């Protein structure tokens, strides 16, 4: 493709035009000369520099002059490039860069014409051709090749094209009809204006911006856990919907937090600076990761706003563009004020560093009130806590030594699942165990000792019922030991989902229900937002949801009984464990039940390393005091013991109930309020040039924030800030940003930028195919930064509306359509592939913004994720049918269907998605359940539509997917498919039933399975058409 383009670049020569440095010479030299004779002083050879006229026209040490303007024969470079000796010719053979004869001649002619250098086009001021328009400038360029703009596409093609381009959704049949019927000259313009005002426009535009700013919902490194970035995504959506001017849009993202009286929205916008990947890996070197985070920001900002590969200057001066390593670090220094750590915690209240609580004023008030209540409840307990009087301590120590605290593990008589899982009891029987202990996982076989193991099908929700018959005694607490095991996919405790979700625990003695007053877990921090009190509150909507990994012990839950339970050795107890939570499959994998006869028994269970029984019953900080005379205690020991006494004293139970309620109320509200990453500014850290990018090397010079030297200096007094950077980026002094942005937008509507490399407008990029058009668009855009007007201008142009059919002449002269002699057929983006199927079928659930959703995803796709081990549970209800841009963007394992259609992982800034065409794409459209379900619902709606014949039905479906009726030939192929399948499904009703079970969308009340299944194969074929996923 590149070579095809060079052909055009050279053609002016043949037409007798003079050689232009930027158009003709720079591309050659950038490819072949600048690596050794360019801006990088570190690798410059023979002290020769060809990218600067001043340097290239000076004599070298031997008195030879590389370039003598006007006199090629005296110019050393001409002698060398035409040299026939392998030892003398340039570039040298070992560089594997050969100049063609035409290229050599071009260089000779340029020298002969005076070796006129030009500044690199992208860094030159924008020169707006006056009075021009897109069409005029395109026509002018085409005319040079004897071509002209093609005729407009037909109206059906046009309405589908512009709908997909502006909203990412196919037009409804009503939209198509209205457009066809509107014969006024303004019909198209009216259509465009309607589409530009729809929320779907914002959704479509956001997709491309989110790629560029590397927006995702997960941290990207190590455990790749989910972080709260989506309010930033909604900021982007709102900005496109409200047509926020691009200068403001830019300022808010780079420095929203620094704006005077920054609003909540502006602070959310500043999350842009926090979207880089972060790690919570225990062994990481903070310096190394801080260097990574900073470098990522430089790469992102320079790509998104400057179309520059400044990232290349992390280790050395740029090879081809005028950027020095110093420029890289000076850019990085702008971001040195961001409050952050190298190791970014990924769970618990401190997770992810600076987070903004997005509470309404009422919520804030409520939270404050609840926080007060919580503090009061804690204070009341503290006040009422008994003193660890020596006599009391001694009695506890004695009782403990005598084993009174030990949890009595129970041997179940029966264990049943309500929803189809298999529960197996291991009492004396041996069972394989795989607990995590002391930093490793131990595999061994041991007697089950009352262990219940769930296996078989994994239902979304389940209720376990376990019976057992305890020895005679008086019991004060029920214990639930949750036995961790590496074979369990979620946190090594639950059978699926991303954590355990336990809604209720109930206990019956015979027919008598027993009530609990307190629920305590031995690992409290990990469930702070979903505390254990949820399992005894009688509310199935609340859940205990601990997120655990790396703990060296089993989770244990102690439930204190309201009344002591007296058993006579014949009493059968029944425990019911309910899993009714929102997260599917978060059901218990392995557990034991236990009873305890004292109030004071702390929830600690068996020793996981050997699975041998250990007494448990005291918290770890008290355990060592059990044998230590209280006279020898330190003050912190007394405190720990006092806390334990306060927890265990039955007299304080009502206070604990109050505390638990206060906690549940507080954290329940707290958990329902979204958070957003944002940028919190702090005192800037020192930024040094890292020699060769080596973070261990502190020998480099300290740098202050600055824009790359080639663009001059910021007029700031004192240390420049991110806001100064943002202001410069959108100032008239910076010619790059408007060009970069219009180039990217251009690609959205034509498939290729005016300059092909969207991420590199530098010397290694491509000179625009139509520089005047690039500048005209850039100047227009920079005049008001109105993104919607820019888009409107483009789609209203005749250039955009052209047919995509190429004439033989156009194909010959403009094979890749770089000169825009026609439109280009484009496979739609990954998200749009999905959205078209859902929209056409009627399955799409519209929304605007909101928390990420989780579509169906193959089981086991996340098995290589760890810290914690987790499984996936898909969303329910409308969330399953949201537009794909709302998909939870898991960086290390992006949803496979999106990935297959080339959606980027967004681990890094991406401005140029590729478009592939692979067999895996066929497998997705054929077999991913969402597409099978869409076909089924499409068929349901087709059969319910007010049309009668099969022919009319096929047209009905075609209109929705393709905005046109089917042709005769198409009708006959699909009729044949329908008839043959109808026959088969009639013969095999079970097959039809099975096909119709795919997906959670309801079936209509009355269904003829064979007919619906056969109709589903028809709609499925339509959803698989190349045309369906192509915008023409």
């Amino acid at each position, binding site marked *: 493709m*590149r070579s095809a383009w060079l052909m055009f670049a050279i053609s002016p020569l043949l037409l007798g035009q003079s050689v232009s440095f930027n158009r003709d010479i720079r591309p050659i030299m950038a490819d072949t000369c600048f690596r050794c004779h360019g801006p990088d002083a570190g690798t410059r050879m023979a002290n020769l520099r060809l990218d600067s006229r001043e340097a290239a026209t000076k004599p070298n040490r031997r008195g030879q002059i590389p370039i003598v303007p006007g006199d090629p024969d005296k110019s050393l470079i001409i002698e060398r490039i035409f040299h026939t000796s392998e030892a003398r010719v340039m570039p040298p053979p070992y560089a594997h860069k050969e100049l063609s004869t035409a290229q050599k001649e071009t260089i000779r002619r340029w020298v002969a014409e005076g070796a006129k250098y030009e500044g690199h086009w992208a860094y030159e001021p924008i020169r707006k051709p006056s009075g021009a328009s897109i069409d005029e400038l395109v026509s002018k360029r085409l005319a040079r090749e004897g071509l002209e703009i093609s005729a407009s596409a037909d109206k059906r093609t046009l309405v589908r094209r512009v709908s997909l381009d502006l909203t990412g959704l196919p037009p409804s049949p009503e939209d198509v009809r209205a457009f066809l019927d509107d014969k006024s000259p303004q019909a198209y313009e009216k259509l465009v204006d309607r589409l530009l005002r729809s929320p779907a426009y914002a959704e479509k535009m956001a997709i491309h911006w989110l790629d560029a700013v590397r927006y995702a919902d997960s941290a990207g490194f190590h455990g790749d856990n989910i972080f709260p970035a989506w309010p930033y995504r909604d900021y982007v959506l709102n900005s496109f919907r409200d047509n926020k001017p691009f200068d403001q849009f830019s300022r808010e993202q780079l420095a929203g937090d620094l704006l005077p009286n920054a609003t909540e929205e502006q602070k959310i916008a500043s999350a842009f600076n926090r979207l880089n990947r972060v790690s919570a890996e225990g062994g990481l070197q903070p310096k190394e990761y801080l260097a990574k985070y900073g470098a990522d920001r430089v790469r992102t900002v320079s790509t998104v706003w400057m179309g520059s590969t400044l990232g290349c200057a992390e280790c050395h001066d740029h090879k081809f563009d005028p950027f020095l390593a110093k420029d890289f670090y000076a850019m990085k220094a702008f971001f040195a004020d961001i409050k952050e750590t190298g190791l970014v915690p990924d769970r618990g209240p401190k997770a992810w560093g600076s987070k903004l609580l997005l509470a309404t004023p009422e919520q804030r008030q409520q939270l404050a009130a609840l926080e007060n209540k919580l503090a009061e409840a804690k204070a009341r307990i503290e006040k009422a806590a008994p003193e660890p009087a020596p006599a009391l301590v001694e009695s506890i120590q004695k009782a403990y030594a005598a084993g009174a605290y030990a949890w009595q593990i129970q041997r179940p008589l029966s264990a049943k699942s309500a929803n189809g899982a298999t529960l197996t009891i291991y009492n004396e029987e041996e069972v394989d165990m795989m607990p995590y202990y002391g930093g490793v996982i131990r595999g061994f076989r041991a007697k089950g000792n009352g262990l219940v193991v769930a296996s078989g099908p994994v239902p979304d929700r389940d209720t376990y019922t376990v019976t057992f018959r305890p020895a005679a005694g008086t019991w004060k607490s029920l214990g639930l030991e949750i036995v961790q095991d590496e074979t369990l996919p979620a946190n090594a405790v639950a059978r699926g989902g991303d954590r355990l979700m336990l809604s209720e625990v109930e206990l019956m003695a015979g027919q008598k229900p027993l009530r609990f007053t307190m629920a305590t877990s031995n690992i409290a921090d990990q469930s702070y937002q979903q505390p254990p009190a949820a399992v005894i509150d009688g509310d199935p909507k609340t859940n205990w949801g601990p997120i655990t990994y790396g703990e060296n012990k089993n989770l244990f839950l102690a439930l204190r009984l309201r009344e002591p339970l007296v058993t006579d050795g014949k009493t059968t107890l029944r425990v019911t464990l309910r899993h009714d939570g929102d997260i599917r499959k978060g059901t218990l994998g392995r557990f034991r039940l236990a009873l305890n006869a004292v109030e004071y028994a702390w929830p600690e269970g068996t020793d996981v390393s050997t699975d041998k029984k250990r007494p448990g019953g005291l918290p770890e900080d008290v355990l060592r005091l059990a044998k230590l005379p209280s006279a020898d205690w330190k003050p912190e020991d007394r405190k720990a013991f006092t806390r334990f006494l306060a927890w265990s004293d039955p007299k304080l139970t009502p206070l604990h109930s109050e505390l638990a309620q206060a906690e549940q109320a507080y954290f329940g509200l707290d958990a329902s309020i979204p958070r957003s990453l944002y940028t919190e500014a702090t005192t800037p850290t020192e930024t040094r040039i890292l020699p060769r990018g080596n973070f261990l090397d502190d020998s480099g010079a300290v740098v202050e924030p600055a824009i790359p030297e080639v663009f001059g200096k910021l007029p700031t007094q004192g240390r420049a800030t991110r806001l100064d950077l943002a202001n410069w980026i959108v100032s008239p002094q910076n010619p790059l940003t408007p060009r970069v942005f219009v180039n990217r937008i251009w690609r959205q509507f034509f498939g290729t930028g005016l300059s092909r490399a969207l991420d590199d407008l530098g010397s290694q990029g491509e000179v625009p195919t139509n520089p005047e058009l690039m500048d005209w668009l850039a100047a227009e855009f920079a005049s008001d930064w109105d993104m919607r007007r820019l888009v409107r201008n483009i789609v209203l142009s005749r250039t955009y509306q052209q047919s995509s059919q190429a004439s033989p002449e156009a194909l010959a002269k403009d094979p890749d359509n770089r000169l825009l002699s026609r439109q280009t057929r484009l496979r739609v983006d990954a998200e749009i592939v999905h959205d078209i199927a859902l929209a056409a079928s009627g399955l799409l659930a519209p929304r605007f913004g909101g928390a990420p959703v989780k579509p169906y995803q193959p089981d086991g796709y996340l098995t290589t994720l760890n810290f914690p081990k987790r499984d996936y549970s898909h969303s329910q209800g409308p969330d399953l049918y949201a537009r794909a841009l709302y998909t939870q963007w898991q960086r290390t394992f992006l949803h496979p269907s999106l990935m297959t259609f080339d959606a980027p992982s967004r681990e890094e800034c991406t401005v140029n998605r590729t478009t592939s065409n692979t067999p895996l*794409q066929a497998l997705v459209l054929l077999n991913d359940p969402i597409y099978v379900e869409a076909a089924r619902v499409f068929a349901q709606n087709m059969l319910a539509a007010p049309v009668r014949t099969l022919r009319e039905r096929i047209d009905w479906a075609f209109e929705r997917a393709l905005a046109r009726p089917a042709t005769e030939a198409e009708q006959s192929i699909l009729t044949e498919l329908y008839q043959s399948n109808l026959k088969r499904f009639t013969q095999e009703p079970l097959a039809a039933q099975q096909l119709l*079970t795919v997906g959670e969308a309801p079936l209509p009340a009355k269904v003829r399975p064979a007919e619906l299944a056969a109709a589903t194969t028809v709609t499925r074929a339509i959803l698989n058409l190349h045309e369906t996923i192509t915008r023409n």
Partner: protein
Amino acid sequence: MLELNLKRRAFLERSIAGFGLAALSNLWGKTIGAVNPLHHAPKAKRVIFLYQAGGPSHLETFDPKPKLAEMHGKPMPESFTKGQQIAQLQGRPLICYGPQHGFQKFGQSGADICEHFPHIGSVADDICIVRSMWTEQINHDPAHTIMNTGSIITGRPSMGSWVVYGLGVENQDLPGFVVLMSSGKGGQNQPVAGRQWSAGILPSKFQGVKFNSVGDPVLYVNNPPGLSSDMQKDTIRAVNRLNQLQHQSLADPEIQTRIAQYEMAFRMQSSVPDLVDMSKEPAHVLEAYGAKPGDGSYASNCLLARRLAERGVRFIQLYHRDWDHHGGVKDGIVSKAQEVDKATAALIRDLKQRGLLEDTLVVWGGEFGRTPMSQGGNGRDHHIKGFSYFLAGGGIRGGQVYGATDELGYAAVEKPVSVHDFHATMLHLLGINHLRMTVKHQGLDVRLTGISGEVVKGILA
């Protein structure tokens, strides 16, 4: 390269018109790769990379260090460690930790190999142990990234993608770059991100396809419930006939590609289940590997690797995780040896018996090694200055040990082999000059070996 593509498209156009669909060749990539003709005669046609993820301790596998045993418990001499990168041992005292297992001499060559790897020892004369590997990255993810892509910049193609890009594919019904993954029972299963087999800046058709041991072996390769293979075929035929109608009016090569991809998808739907169905493997073969079909173990994956190699898959990368022995390295090595020793040797022997070893390059190794210093009294930290690999098969001179670390096993001092050297050598064996296989990106001629890398001649046959 792109020009070639255009010509090829034009060719396809003609063939469609002339001979109908049957003339379409495979479109996984190209049966002919970007390096055509090859730069020199190849010694190997495919690669099986047995990737031991987590960082196996060289000191308890392939690099005996009696001196370290002597120094056990003593401070590590500062001359070794000063100014070097350290991961979790930062700021801790650095104490020598002697090898935890004995070594034995194996084969005619008498190579010293840890006694817990007797099966690998039994093929010692077929393998070349490299004791002088070193890398630049000390944390798992970046270390995997450089080992796979030769760079720590995200977006560089994985070596499997490079190889398929360069050589094309042999089998039209299977992807050219297949990834298999197994976990160990030791609980050190560090995550491995999907980007490790990404095609990066190369077209995405070159990306690795991960096979799964749970669910569909390749994502979405199974028909929806209720649809038989015949019914699926009917639908695909209808789709392709409809697409063909479009093509007749538009002459768009992308439509033609789409048609071919649906045919390919359908073929995969039968070839993949056939590939992973090990029910016809004789009992003695299963026994030799220690494989239980369907268990997703390293052993089963080794057997699957042979089946992939037989079918001409170009680059087969097995990850076995769980080598991250910060603690309990002694038991950890025994546990890993139980998981990988027998199957690794069985694979080499099986390939040899089938005549496949001579043109298959087998590589065994991880992203880095482990410190001669102890961590937590019974483990070892990440270590990048020296570690071991072994290679076997196509073009490798077996029965030799190449390079060495210093007497404490800290740094590769004799004939050090960098990641780039390793890549250069691998490409060399495949008939590719690593300097000459490049792709333009952001103005750079990107190559797998970055800006360095020398073919390690000493290990070649």
